[in-house]
């Protein structure tokens, strides 16, 4: 559907994107994830045509669109600020692109009302000014405006970042629902890993203008390809030399020159010993009670580790108690230290 081949983008002397290769498939929900300044929005803007790459090509449906002007690409965008025109009504906002295509009035009207119904906007809301709508309604207008010209692909640039936490979760679900209904290929930019994990079919993790990994949410989370990815996604414990040495004593076979990590939920303090797990004694330093789960800070071999346990009624530990920490050595992710290690 959309293919980026060896894209390089430069701003003056600064290289913002290095050899970016992405292939987004038809109907896929594809997410660009990374910290701010990593190049994810730049990549998106290269696809939409706001930025011309220094080298490399952009293909859409096997057609080279690298030098096609923005307005002729037929790619819909939902902006971070929604970029709704404040001087137009909701209706005029949605109709803007159709009017520029010189469609007849009845045709425009039909299309606007059609898409409005699909994104759940009433006739009354169509007549309102954009500023009279709530954040969630504005997002639906932005989506309707992007979809009404039937683009072959829709790009969403951090569309949830302006909203408060509760609305963000609610709209995230709506967004996913709409994408499924429309079945449109979507490219989504975010720095929020939870959003990326819950929404995406596949994720590309960006860092400093490079792509670190492309994969499904499960691959990204549980089989992080690089040390950066494993640190960026979710919370994680780095195992220090003391523990690594102790594990190797018990036959774990970890390379002490590498960095080793284990996720919080893969460490346990409530599990019975089943023979597959390594078990240590650890001292509970503190516990944070979240309701759904409990987060313990424990100390083993002089290292502080964080553990998450589901709040399933097992005895909660209190400070100073000794717990049996257990984990499966298969869950340890190991990386050879490189220059780009941001641990």
């Amino acid at each position, binding site marked *: 559907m959309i293919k980026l081949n060896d894209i390089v983008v430069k701003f003056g002397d600064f290289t913002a994107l290095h050899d970016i290769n992405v292939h987004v498939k038809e109907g896929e929900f594809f997410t660009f994830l990374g910290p701010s300044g990593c190049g994810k929005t730049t990549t998106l803007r290269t696809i*939409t*045509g*706001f*930025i*011309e790459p220094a080298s490399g090509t952009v293909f859409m449906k096997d057609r080279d669109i690298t*030098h*096609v*002007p*923005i*307005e*002729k690409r037929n*790619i*819909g*965008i939902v*902006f*971070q*600020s929604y*970029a709704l*025109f*404040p*001087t*137009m*009504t909701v209706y005029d906002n949605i109709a*803007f*692109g159709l009017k*520029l*295509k010189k469609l007849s009035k009845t045709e425009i009207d039909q299309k606007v009302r059609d898409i409005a119904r699909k994104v759940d906007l009433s006739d009354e809301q169509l*007549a*309102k*000014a*954009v*500023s*009279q709508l709530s954040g969630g309604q504005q997002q639906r207008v932005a989506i309707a*405006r992007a979809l009404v*010209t039937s683009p072959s692909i829709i790009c969403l640039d951090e569309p949830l970042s302006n909203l408060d936490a509760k609305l963000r979760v609610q709209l995230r679900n709506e967004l996913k629902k709409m994408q499924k209904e429309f079945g449109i290929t979507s490219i989504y930019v975010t720095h929020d890993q939870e959003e990326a994990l819950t929404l995406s079919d596949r994720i590309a993790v960006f860092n400093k203008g490079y792509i670190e990994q492309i994969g499904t949410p499960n691959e990204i989370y549980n089989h992080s390809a690089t040390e950066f990815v494993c640190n960026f996604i979710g919370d994680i414990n780095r195992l220090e030399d003391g523990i690594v040495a102790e594990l190797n004593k018990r036959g774990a076979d970890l390379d002490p020159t590498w960095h080793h990590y284990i996720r919080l939920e893969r460490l346990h303090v409530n599990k019975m010993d089943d023979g597959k797990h390594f078990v240590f004694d650890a001292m509970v330093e503190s516990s944070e009670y979240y309701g759904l789960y409990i987060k313990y800070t424990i100390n083993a071999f002089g290292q502080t580790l964080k553990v998450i346990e589901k709040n399933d009624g097992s005895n909660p530990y209190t400070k100073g108690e000794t717990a049996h920490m257990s984990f499966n050595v298969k869950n340890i992710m190991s990386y050879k230290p490189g220059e780009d290690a941001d641990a």
Partner: protein
Amino acid sequence: MLNEKRFDATFVFRIIGIVFFAYLFLGFMVVPCWNTLTSIFREKTASGEADPFVVIRFFLAGNMKNYVWNSLKLAVILVITVNIVGISIVLLTEYFDIKGAKILRMGYMTTMIYSGVALVTGYMFLYANDGILTPLLTNAFPGLSKTWFTGFGAVVFTMTFACTSNHMLFLRNAIRGIDYNTVEAARNMGAGPFKVLLKVVMPTLIPTLFSLTVMTFITGLCAMSSPTLLGYDSINPEIVRLAGSSSADESFPQARAALLSIILAIFTIVLLTVLTAYERKGHYLSVSKTKARLQKQKINNPVANVLAHIYAYVLFIIYMTPVIMIIIFSFQSYTAIRLKRIDFSNWTLINFFGQEDFEFLTSRGTYKTREGAISGVFSNADAVGGIKMSFILSAVAAALACVIVVVACNYISKHKKTGTFLEYALLFPWLLPTILICYSYRSYFNTETVWYVGNNNLYYADNVKLLIIMAYVVTKLPFSLRMIKASFYTIDSELEDAAKNLGSSPIQTFLKVKLPIILPSVLAVFALNFNALFTEYDMSATFASKYGKTYAMVIQSMTMDEGLYGYNVNASGRRCASTVFIMIVSGIILWLVYGVGARDLSERLEARKRRRERFAKIFGKKKLTTEP
């Protein structure tokens, strides 16, 4: 960024734009003013020898210095008096709890709807030696001469109260921007209201006060209508006099006018440079994110409280008396105005629309009648001519200034480097006193040898209107640019991207997306420009051409003595009516700009809905009654 064609319409527009702005900047700002500067050094001595410094020697030797000293004296005194009154009225209405603050504020704000010539002639109507309040004042204060309202004292008195509009605008905003929590914190730590004012409130106002002081100083230096009408020898009236004089009467009057206007320009440039340098340092009124609104401070000491109230209402009376008197007398008959006595039984519109015969006793003892000699503003050919002239010239100039600035801002917002150059070019007239620009136009274009205006003498006959329009446009560019540029910066750049993405061309994006967003500000700037130019006096007085006789000049001529034999009859009545007319026009414009114009789309839609509902109610009822 991705354009298929580079040499398309956009490119042609750009070239036209560059040529136009270069023409405007060089032809109507740099060259004429440069000519004024150099003309000082082109004079010859009495014996006919070229002597570049003869004018400067003349200046240093003669009494010309006095005009500069007088202007400086006025500026210094005004800085003191205007700041005292300006700070007082803002504190009395915004900071201290004074009873009737809303009414007081309206009184203090009256200078916003009438200023310049309209205000000065209004004050003269009250206080001049034939003024309506002069007998009252001389009775009350036996030492006071009938002619007290002339010269330096009168100019200071008038301008002290006339020049507080900026305080009411900017200082008021600054004081309202104070975080009340800081006041509460100071009170909590044991400071009284006056201590808080001195230690907490005032320091945050200092940047604003500094700007206001510089602005007031420049206003004083460049004062025109007050010194001209009230008779005070400051720089500007002298420049106008010299510009109209000829070398047959005195030594090189033109070069002397040029020298004075350059001196004025040097002062202005130095002051504005100081001001910008000061403003660039950056001052922040408040650092807190959750601001609390200022609450008015009660003055606890009863004596101070009473004194503050008395002070507030005395100021109120000074501000309101001219307004009230002018409004009352504008509806009084010719006889009542001549006798300076209000006739409560006889109200008339004659000063606005009427016409009446004037009967007078000739020296031979017979009565003679001039038909329709007592006429109102709108039935007097002179006055109507001036209104029409000012209306057209200011509307055209205000519109031109807006169009030029909008086009320029669109360019500036897109091109950083060349845009900055354009911006400074358009801000350039800000450094020059208007009189320098007008005098330069008058002297430079008064020949048929300026090639870039087609070898036409622009100061000749009706051409002068063109010259006035150009002067209006050029002097209004800096203000327009600052205002409109600010509104350009509020446009989210994503809006432009969104429009492009939906398939719109740069011109379509500008017309359909950006222009509607900035339109309210553009219209506001147009209205404010128009308002200022409509009653503008300084510039048209400098041109002093009967082909460009503006409204303000007509009003000025109404202050001349009314001839007993039927000349200039009822000028006082027309003057009052003119001031009322100006107040109405300005009032409407300010209401449109700050009231209606500030509404956004949602507020307009709501208003429309309410109108429709009201309409439907009336219409629906009618329908019911007409149905069988």
